[in-house]
């Protein structure tokens, strides 16, 4: 009776060595004082966590991360649906063109996208055009928090909307044609058909829920786009001073390494990031499965 479990052993060993072990070890490490300069591990209890949680920069980073995660995942979901509707309602030839063009952003390295959308490339030119070229006497002030948060969210959505588009196209295609036809015959307008049939089908689709989850988890690791903004927003940050404006958690971890290498503190942060990510994903999952009922 126990024999079948024997066959699981190799897989379990690998999972333990590659996944559970390191996480557990990181957790132990985060409870100690450890420096690469002085490689001895002394337990300090929750000291690292306490100092992190009392650090306003850390809280700021959490806020910024949550704002960017929810902003961009929501936006790319909505934009993805629009693109999918455009593709599924257009003709064969246009459909091929649209889908090839729309997918391009996924293939571009996020750091390139970040730089492309950052003030010193695109907005520099746009503002020159607005201010001097068109003599409008106005320009987009990218140093305003609302503006730069919007642009960062927008550029991340620009990267990932095509993913939602591809999944949504598949979901729309899987809606039985007769349902749409029935609605049409019963007198429903195009908008009613979308509102009552297509959209509920998208929301209820497990494929969409999984994509939302993956993207949410992945967005917490957002780094390149905010990174490409950091150096512009506060020039001093290059010296290692924390830029709390667009500092996401990943940036906070990264920038901590600029002075020395406080591995234990960074590990504590990583564990907290993991906790935040898992909690959020659990909430997203619960929310979406309640939608399914």
């Amino acid at each position, binding site marked *: 009776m126990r024999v079948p479990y024997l066959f699981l052993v190799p897989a379990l060993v690998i999972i333990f060595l590659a996944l559970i072990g390191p996480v557990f070890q990181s957790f132990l490490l985060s409870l100690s004082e450890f420096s690469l300069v002085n490689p001895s591990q002394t337990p300090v209890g929750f000291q690292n966590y306490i100092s992190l949680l009392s650090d306003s920069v850390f809280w700021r980073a959490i806020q910024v991360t949550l704002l960017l995660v929810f902003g961009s995942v929501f936006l790319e979901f909505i934009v993805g649906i629009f693109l999918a509707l455009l593709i599924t309602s257009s003709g064969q030839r246009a459909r091929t063109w649209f889908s090839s063009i729309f997918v391009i952003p996924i293939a571009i390295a996020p750091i390139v996208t970040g730089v492309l959308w950052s003030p010193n490339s695109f907005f520099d030119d746009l503002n020159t055009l607005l201010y001097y070229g068109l003599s409008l006497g106005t320009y987009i002030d990218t140093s305003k928090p609302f503006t730069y948060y919007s642009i960062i969210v927008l550029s991340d959505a620009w990267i990932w909307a095509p993913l939602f588009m591809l999944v949504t196209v598949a979901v729309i295609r899987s809606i*039985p044609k*007769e*349902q749409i*036809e*029935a*609605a*049409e*015959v*019963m*007198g*429903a*307008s195009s908008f*009613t058909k979308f509102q*009552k*049939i297509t959209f*509920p*089908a998208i929301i*209820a689709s497990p494929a969409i829920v999984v994509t939302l989850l993956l993207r949410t988890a992945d967005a917490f690791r957002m780094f390149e786009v905010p990174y490409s903004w950091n150096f512009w927003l506060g020039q001093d940050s290059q010296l290692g001073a924390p830029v709390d404006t667009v500092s996401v958690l990943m940036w906070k971890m990264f920038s901590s390494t600029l002075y020395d290498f406080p591995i234990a503190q960074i590990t504590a942060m990583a564990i907290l990031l993991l906790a935040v990510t898992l909690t959020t994903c659990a909430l997203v999952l619960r929310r979406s499965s309640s939608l399914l009922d």
Partner: protein
Amino acid sequence: MSSVTLKKVSKRFTNSDVDAVSQVDLEIENKEFLVILGPSGSGKSSLLRLIAGLEEASNGEVYFGNDLMNDISPRERDISMVFQNFALFPNMTVYENIAFPIRASGKDSTNLDSEVKKIASMLQIESLLDRKPGELSGGEQQRVSLGRAIIKKPKVFLMDEPLSNLDASLRSELRTEIKKLHEELGITFIYVTHDQTEAMSMADRIALIKDGKLLQVDKPDVLYNNPNHSWIGSFLGMPAMNLVNSSDLGDSISTKKGTTVVGIRPENITVSSGNSKLTGSVISTEYLGDSQILNVKIANSVVKVKVPNDSKFSVGTDVNLDFSDGDLRFFSDDGKTVR
């Protein structure tokens, strides 16, 4: 409530070199129950979809009453449709599904609640109103779909093989109910099926379609007894009409001029001990419960004969067959009836 008239309607799909529906002329009277019957791939569903406006005619005109419908969208044609796979909206309850046509088309919804409940009780689904379609059986789903179709009291009620996904006992139950519904509503019904029992039992008239062409439009008994094409004889009836080359019959039977094929229904032939028009040997028997079929070989043809279920015939014995000349049907080379 409206008559439906098709004038030389054709439909050819892109990437196809044959007409799915070809030159169809059809007049459906107001309040009529017309069944479009044909084998699969005959174009019967395409024909229905042309009437619904879900397909655009390549040629010809569709009229409701005196109004040309070709450029009117399905949602403005004032029709209802029931689909083979029910096509209920999975995210809505039964109640919302039935109420959908009124809410979606922005019609007056003051009495909506009582309307929905009235229809639900008519179709015996009152207890299911709060359920979602996924929790219902096939028969219940099709009842909901019928309810959703009748609530807006359309001019024309279209049904595309509504019973094909249901099991046999449910089919006969719903057949009776659809027939009753037609009498109560007084709406023009157009019903597509490949099942001749459905067609025969429900239709005022049957339009028989094959390869996109209408072969005959007539009352069920006329279609059964006087088909204008040998193919109709072989399509209708279980078992179908016997079609025998006239050369196999010898001189014992007088045929009309131009006849190459003679048809007779198995139930119109008797095995007799006295008079005999034809003699052949039994090559096999099929027991059908209420009756029995003898396969009798005559020259190069096999003739099916329907005999009482308690008669005993052993394979290999010779039998004498008798029939009345009035039951013979004559067909020419191209399958048309010789009159």
